[in-house]
């Protein structure tokens, strides 16, 4: 710049180019830095991103949230669901009992559960694992097989032990959750707020029963197989990157109905009811049958009991 030239009031070509280059580079850097976020987030709206934790939602806010979720599901699957927030009944403590003498390992419960609870078909997510164990008295879970595919069941020399969430009284999965996205409800069901879960999978590692499943990919469910009766804490479609697990079919049991796995069991091995009711079938079983819980030594106090017909 020669001394006789007056300095420009606004911007020279040089400073303009420099500023815009800096700005463009900065914008590109910010975009590149934010790019991974586009892949991990499932947020379809600002309201969803800013949603409070389940327990902090007022009834009015919950109404808005449920309506929003109905809209989301309709957009994604093309079917209008009915999403409700089922509350626990007072004076009810759920207990589950499973008759190991009767179970034949047909896996009907596994697939009834998938159909009822809108689990992802691909990748496949199932809450119940049926373990085939040798009937040699060893009761060694390590020697169990979950991939058995014989022509017919039961097979001689084996018994079958379905394992699902035990709805522990002292749940390790709840203790380890760093964001309080999972907790135990008054009726004993351990639930997950799918909108609050950050997908760290600590609970999956903490569970001694392999009851929790992680959505590694966006769940896919064929439209015609969607169960439109949904609950917020239960069977509404899950997002990629969140945990899910058996919730005793909250949308059925909190209405007084049996869970889908109980309904479907062809041998009547599965029993469900209110342990506080002395006349319920589970009360009778706990009083009169030989019952045990899995991995009792861990002190989890499951609400899921196995029993024998002896």
């Amino acid at each position, binding site marked *: 710049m020669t001394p006789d030239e007056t300095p420009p009031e606004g911007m020279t070509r040089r400073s303009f180019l420099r500023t815009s280059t800096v700005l463009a580079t900065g914008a590109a850097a910010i975009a590149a830095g934010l790019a991974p976020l586009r892949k991990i987030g499932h947020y379809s709206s*600002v309201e969803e991103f800013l949603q409070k934790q389940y327990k902090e939602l007022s009834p009015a806010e919950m109404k808005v949230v449920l309506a929003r979720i109905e809209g989301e599901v309709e957009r994604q699957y093309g079917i209008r669901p009915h999403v409700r927030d089922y509350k626990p009944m007072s004076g009810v403590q759920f207990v589950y009992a499973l008759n190991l003498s009767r179970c034949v390992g047909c896996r009907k419960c596994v697939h009834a559960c998938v159909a009822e609870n809108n689990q992802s078909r691909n990748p496949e997510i199932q809450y119940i694992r049926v373990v085939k164990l040798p009937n040699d008295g060893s009761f060694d879970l390590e020697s169990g097989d979950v991939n058995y595919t014989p022509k017919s*069941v039961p097979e001689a020399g084996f018994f079958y032990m379905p394992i699902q969430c035990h709805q522990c009284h002292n749940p390790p999965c709840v203790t380890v959750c760093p964001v309080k996205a999972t907790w135990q409800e008054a009726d004993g069901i351990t639930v997950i707020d799918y909108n609050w879960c950050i997908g760290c999978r600590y609970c999956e590692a903490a569970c001694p029963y392999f009851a929790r499943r992680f959505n590694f990919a966006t769940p896919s469910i064929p439209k015609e197989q969607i169960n439109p009766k949904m609950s917020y804490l239960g069977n509404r479609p899950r997002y990629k990157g969140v945990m899910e697990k058996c919730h005793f079919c909250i949308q059925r049991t909190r209405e007084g109905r049996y869970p889908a796995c109980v309904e479907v069991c062809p041998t009547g091995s599965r029993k469900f009811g209110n342990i506080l009711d002395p006349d319920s079938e589970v009360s009778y079983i706990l009083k009169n049958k030989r019952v045990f819980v899995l991995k009792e030594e861990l002190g989890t106090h499951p609400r899921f009991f196995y029993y024998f017909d002896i």
Partner: protein
Amino acid sequence: METERKTQVVLAVLTMGFAALAINFVRVPARAGVEKRAPLILPGSLAIVPGTIRVSAAQLVASGGDASGLQCYACHDAKKPPEIRYDANHRVVLPKEHLDLIYGMRNCSECHTPDEGVKIEYNADGVVIIPDAHRNLAHMAHGRYLRNEDCFNCHVSTQLDHLHTPEGLVVGLDQATQLCAGCHGTQYRDWESGAHGRRNGYWKSSAGPTVRQECTSCHDPHAPAFTPLIPMPAPHSLHDPRRNPS
């Protein structure tokens, strides 16, 4: 000023750029949710689940599924029971899609065709004549060592559709549970309290009816041991070499 205008234009362009970036950030994941993939489990294989799955009878037949755990009202609405049709000889016409369904754990169509009809014949004393084919021990498997193969241990000899209990009471077929209880007391006790057998509907009686399945809903009284079932598909493990040969 020329330069000020340029600055404003550049700033406006940048603002629009950021706004577009923000919109893209919010919208893109929602679009990614509907991508299509080939199913790992064929939908047809789910048709063999009774109860909660909604499939047509045609699909049920097409799947070749094991229907031994099936109840009529798993598919039919209990409030609108299906109409039963009769032919000119007052025989029940079986719908074609029901041919593979198993009645009382026993498949009638193993031996009988639906248009053949079955006539019950009586002798001069009014006692039902049991066809020789039904004396076949393969059909009677009640009790160990086949000791309980006499029809009239349970059936009234002059009225096959009535049963007599060990106490001498005559009851209808719909009250067979009373007869079963005569020998299977422990199972009856467990059934009464809900530990044995199926219960459907509502666990909470004030919310709705609890359906107690009777003995003969699950057991064939002539061969009460459960017949083997076809297991549903195993879980798909991505690490299972049998499923992923590559």
